[in-house]
């Protein structure tokens, strides 16, 4: 829900990948997407695989070095930096190099970008884009671009004013604005090249995801599941801003861009016009399935992968059926949007479990066979390993305490819900795990081909449906469930888990007092970076999870850390601080009002977060002395 979005951008700068090849398995991430020359991919570079006792290995197919041109780092969504100047032995000497105040108060979820000697930072509403000159001491402002999103409809997009980052390709920077536009800006001058309206804020549509550029098309999806929007992913011509195609997440096949090439793996996804037939009457017209999460791209298969949000806005018993194509993952042709396969993580979702999380593209090598797969940490509490070409589930393993389902039937692909934990209005249902924000929300993982581990920032949240609460909206009184979030087993709210996709088990876990709502970054120095909602930026050992260093930032961190090499040749680590977003604005407020049933210390814990944090975006940049 809730508003409930995000996706990204593509890079054109392949030189960095070729120059720092660590890839053993040859999936050339830049192939077909890069105009600036063929990538020089070499195989056999050192440290490319993570060995495991079972004989299996897992490798990634990309990673980034000097630049950071899209929020997830690369098309494979690894967020892996091949830089290793900063490593486990010297990270304890990291110190702040410079800072920059964004002048904006909303939750800062974006990743900064670095292209050449310029850093690009996009803020939450009003979505100002700053270009910072990295050749100047302290990152002086080179230009700023103000898209001036409509503030007239104040309150129409109430819940979530975040922006998850920009994208860079071919001399242009692309940003999405909260009021439903995508803009292209000249990277040198900040001049607007085009601006296209995709969503209508008056209908509750917003855009919060980071765009991604694939093969000359800017991919953008909408947010607004809480407002009964109909989800879509659109592709715009990067040069002109013209809309090339738009694929809806509900409705007839022609709207969903499902044709003869659509070959889903599981039976329940096969059939004609399931986007209407799995809904009562015309409920699909505002059925949700917003596309506010991450996009991955596999140049070899020439497929994009992205998730769709939960169905809405009716209660589950008012929308009988699977509610296709919500809470699942699409594979599509980036050229025309043609759907290739779909898998539904949560058919007929009961828990507001958006299916928009990151799809990390890696290659599994087991028993002498290598297989391109998607590793997908899902909101419903499972890590899925899916065949990238077909959507077949290869493994599915819980990574948190789960009470709402017993697993996934590998024959049918269907999540097995637990009847006793199905929420019903007016009925008290306790200890539903994971809670509505899921075992893991939007906060993106990273993957290191050196350790073979996926570093997942996530939640440890359960919830009770406690009864009825009177509310009021737009002049209409109503009653809703009173949902009480509470910590899962252990009493902490967040975790960072290093997940081994081959063994399908954690290598290590770090408990965090609050939800781990920032992204993670992993480097070839085997250091994992992440931020906390109480404002600490931390570096831990990628192999052991041991804390190596931390620094206090200006506000709570819910952004995405990145690494880059500055014009001075040094490696830098950068992250935006600035509490807000769903946890900052909603969860914190909701939690502190509900106490006695909510577990000892819970209300007090969240109050302490509120008391200790102030809003305001600050970019922090760190380096070795």
């Amino acid at each position: 829900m809730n508003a409930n979005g995000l996706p990204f951008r593509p890079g054109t700068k392949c030189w960095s990948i070729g120059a720092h090849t660590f890839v053993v398995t040859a999936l050339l991430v830049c192939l077909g997407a890069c105009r600036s020359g063929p990538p020089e991919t070499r195989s056999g570079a050192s440290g490319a695989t993570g060995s495991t006792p079972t004989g299996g290995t897992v490798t990634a197919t990309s990673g980034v070095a000097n630049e950071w041109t899209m929020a997830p780092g690369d098309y494979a969504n690894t967020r892996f930096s091949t830089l290793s100047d900063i490593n486990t032995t010297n990270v304890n000497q990291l110190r702040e190099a410079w800072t920059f105040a964004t002048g904006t108060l909303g939750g800062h979820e974006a990743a900064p970008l670095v292209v050449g000697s310029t850093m690009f930072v996009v803020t939450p509403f009003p979505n100002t884009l700053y270009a910072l000159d990295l050749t100047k001491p302290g990152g002086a402002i080179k230009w700023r671009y103000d898209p001036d999103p409509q503030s007239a409809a104040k309150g129409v997009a109430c819940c979530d004013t975040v922006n998850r980052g920009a994208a860079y390709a071919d001399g242009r920077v692309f940003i999405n604005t909260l009021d439903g536009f995508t803009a292209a800006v000249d990277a040198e001058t900040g001049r607007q090249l085009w601006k296209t309206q995709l969503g209508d804020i008056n209908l509750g549509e917003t855009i919060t995801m980071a765009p991604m550029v694939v093969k000359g098309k800017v991919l953008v999806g909408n947010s607004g599941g809480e407002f009964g929007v109909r989800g879509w992913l659109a592709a715009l011509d990067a040069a002109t801003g013209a809309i090339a195609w738009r694929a809806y997440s509900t409705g007839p096949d022609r709207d969903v861009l499902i044709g003869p090439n659509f070959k889903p793996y599981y039976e329940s996804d096969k059939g004609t016009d399931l986007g209407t037939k799995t809904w009562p009457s015309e409920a699909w017209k505002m059925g949700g399935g917003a596309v506010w999460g991450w996009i991955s791209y596999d140049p070899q298969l020439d497929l994009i992968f992205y998730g769709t949000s939960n169905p809405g806005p009716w209660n589950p018993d008012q929308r009988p059926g699977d509610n296709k194509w919500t809470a699942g993952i699409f594979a599509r042709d980036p050229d025309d949007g043609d759907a290739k396969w779909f898998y539904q993580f949560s058919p007929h979702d009961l828990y507001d479990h958006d299916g928009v999380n990151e799809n990390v593209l890696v290659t599994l090598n087991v028993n002498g066979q290598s297989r391109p797969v998607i590793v997908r940490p899902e909101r419903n509490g499972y890590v899925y390993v899916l065949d990238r070409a077909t959507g077949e589930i290869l493994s599915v393993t819980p990574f948190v305490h789960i009470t709402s389902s017993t697993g996934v039937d590998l024959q049918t692909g269907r999540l097995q819900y637990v009847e006793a934990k199905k929420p019903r209005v007016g009925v008290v249902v306790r200890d539903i795990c994971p809670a509505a924000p899921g075992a893991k929300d939007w906060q993106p993982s990273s993957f290191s081909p050196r350790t073979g581990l996926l570093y997942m920032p996530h939640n440890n949240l359960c919830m009770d449906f406690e009864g009825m609460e009177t509310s009021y909206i737009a002049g209409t009184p109503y009653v809703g469930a009173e949902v009480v979030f509470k910590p899962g087993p252990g009493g902490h709210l967040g975790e960072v888990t290093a997940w081994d996709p081959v063994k399908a088990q954690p290598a290590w876990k770090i408990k965090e007092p609050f939800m781990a709502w920032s992204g993670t970054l992993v480097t070839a120095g085997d250091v994992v970076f992440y931020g906390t909602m109480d404002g600490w930026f931390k570096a831990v050992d990628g192999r052991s999870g041991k804390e190596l260093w931390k620094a206090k930032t200006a506000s709570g961190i819910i952004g995405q850390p990145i690494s880059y090499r500055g014009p001075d040749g040094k490696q830098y680590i950068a992250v935006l601080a600035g509490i807000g977003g769903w946890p900052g604005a909603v969860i914190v407020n909701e939690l502190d009002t509900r106490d006695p049933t909510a577990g000892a210390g819970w209300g007090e814990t969240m109050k302490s977060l509120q008391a200790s944090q102030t809003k305001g975006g600050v970019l922090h940049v760190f380096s070795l002395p």
Partner: protein
Amino acid sequence: MSSAFPSVAAAAVLSMAAVSCARPAPVPDAPSRVLRVCADPNNLPFSNRALEGFENRIASLVADRLDAKVEYEWWAQRRGFVRNTLRAGLCDVVMGLPSRMEMAATTQPYYRSSYMFVTRRGTHQPASFDDAFLKTAKVGVHIIGDDFSNSPPAHALSNRGLIDNVRGYSVYGNYKSPNPPAELIRAVEQGEIDVAIAWGPLAGYFAQVSKVPLQLTRVMPEREPPFPFVFDMSMAVARSNTALKDELDKVITDNKPAIDAILRAFAVPIVDDRKVASR
């Protein structure tokens, strides 16, 4: 849009005139006290930027009694409205919230209304949610947008397995159009649905100004545990602002006839029975 509703506008003006005349003389200087009101700028019959809603009228009446002037903070009524307005300190009072709302301190109720069946005149008037008519008619209800947070009629219908003949109208509607929640009533006018189940003030006002004659019937039962269909409505202030709450309670007690007159002018269906204890 207001010009389409001459009778309502006239009645409202009359009631305001009565209010002004009750004061001995115009105060030469504008009052220095300010009553900051958070309201939706596009949501008749409750409020709008042109101050044509009954909550606008009542805010003026209250301010007059407190020797204050009204200043508005406009904010669309969405999830987070109370959090972003009253609780964020943008204003002193929200003119209409359910008396049982827990996010704020609420005054004594100043009206009580009910969800209503809205049908075209001359067609069947449903007697209750169990009326067989609802099994075959095209039924429209407001939907809120979050799972498990829906209008009580939506729950009542789904409890009876009424799904395929029910059409949902987003309570948010299209904010570019005037008074977006009213789309539900327009759908009855235009024959898109046979019956709307709408909150009383919205139903009453837009039925009164409809070009097609409409009829209203109070929904029954009055309560279907755990869902009430009748709500007491209050003004709301920040929980800590007990002084203002006390002042507002007194204004409501002392000005009941004037408040009732405003509600009547806007055709708000008033439920006057006392079977449900008010706070």
